[in-house]
């Protein structure tokens, strides 16, 4: 049977991708950011996932205002890397796992979560920056990736509670797939940042760290936090953090299993406009 072995959480700041692509990782500004992922890069070589279920948001790339799906599951075989206006990132094409994705669609929709299924879409920095942070610059990504795009651009976005619940449904789906697969679930975006208006540049170090504490120790309680708290405390784009609750909801302890082990915890300010946070939780 397939099993979820771990969850990984990380910011997906586009400037991090640009720094990597342009060879700036050794610069004083970027060094501390990338150092926070040294452990993860080593860890993932040893834990080698077959598939990553990657929760991210599209930033007006695959989805314009013509179509705004709340939860979009990538069921296709391959996902090309988008040109977001600066030219496509020089990273490998993303290959999906259509069999597992179809199984997840069947299970999660029957569990009352009305997903949008996407066979053809391009993926942007929200998906590729986390892969780059964890895998560096390989010729090909070392595993399959199922993209799961969440609308956090146009309000109302899904609530933390809904995200936490859908994570639990995704866990149930993955763990009932017959093939023996090592699956990781990643939650990306955040942490505190605001990209607009006179309040642009907002960062809330204390709130972010409290979010990490609660995500680890009491995610069910964290999931009850209303959107407005994210906006006031972590900036209008800090709302991306609801996506972390999807990955957290898919961990074993939420379904009555053992508490996960915290393998890595990292926090740094700034990367461009944003606070960078990163966690690795391993199921026991």
């Amino acid at each position, binding site marked *: 049977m397939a099993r979820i072995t771990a969850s990984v959480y990380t910011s997906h700041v586009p400037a991090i991708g640009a720094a990597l692509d342009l060879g700036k990782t050794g610069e004083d500004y970027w060094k501390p950011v990338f150092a926070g992922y040294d452990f993860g890069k080593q860890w993932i070589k040893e834990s080698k996932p077959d598939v990553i279920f990657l929760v991210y948001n599209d930033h007006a790339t695959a989805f314009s205002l*013509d179509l705004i799906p709340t939860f979009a599951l990538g069921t296709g075989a391959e996902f090309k890397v988008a040109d977001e206006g600066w030219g496509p990132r020089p990273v490998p094409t993303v290959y999906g796992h259509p069999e597992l994705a179809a199984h997840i669609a069947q299970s999660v929709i029957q569990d009352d979560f009305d997903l949008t299924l996407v066979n053809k879409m391009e993926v942007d920095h929200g998906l590729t920056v986390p892969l780059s942070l964890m895998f560096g610059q390989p010729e090909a990504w070392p595993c399959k990736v199922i993209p799961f795009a969440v609308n956090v651009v*146009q*309000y*109302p976005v899904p609530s933390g509670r809904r995200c936490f619940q859908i994570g639990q449904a995704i866990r149930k789906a993955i763990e009932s797939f017959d093939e023996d697969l090592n699956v990781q679930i990643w939650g990306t975006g955040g942490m505190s940042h605001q990209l*607009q*208006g006179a309040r642009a*540049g*907002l960062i809330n170090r204390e709130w972010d760290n409290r979010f990490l504490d609660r995500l680890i120790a009491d995610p069910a309680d964290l999931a009850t936090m209303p959107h407005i708290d994210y*906006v006031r405390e972590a900036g209008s784009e800090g709302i991306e953090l609801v996506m972390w609750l999807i990955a957290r909801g898919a961990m074993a302890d939420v379904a009555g299993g053992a508490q996960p082990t915290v393998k890595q915890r990292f926090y740094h300010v700034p990367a461009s406009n944003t606070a960078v946070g990163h966690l690795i939780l391993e199921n026991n």
Partner: protein
Amino acid sequence: MALEKPYQDVPGTIIFDAEQSRKGYWLNQFCMSLMQAENRARFKANERAYLDEWAMSEEQKQAVLARDLNWCMRTGGNIYFLAKIGATDGRSFQQMAGSMTGMSEEEYRDMMIKGGRSADGNRYLGEDGDAQPHRQPQGKAGQKGQQ
């Protein structure tokens, strides 16, 4: 019946909700068109003529021509869409975000390196933080205005 929108008393912030999205539909779709190199070239060659191909309001067109992102947002623009204009102009996300505060590029970058803008005083309209309406523009631009 009016629906609950608890985010309207956050200073210096416009939440892009379904109502803003309705207002900004053509503005944002114009921005999306700039993801294609051919359209970027046509826009750069004659901005006004290119904008006139879209069912945008005159105010939206003026806001784009002025590259005033706060104005664009008030008329329904969303920052992830507006970023395509910045990409066309060769500007980074940090330059775009900074431009909305009135600070110079250097001032904004320095603020971020020092840990960013504090939430204190900036949670509700009527407090006294640096993002409040009575404290705009920020940075040297604002100090000049007070003298």
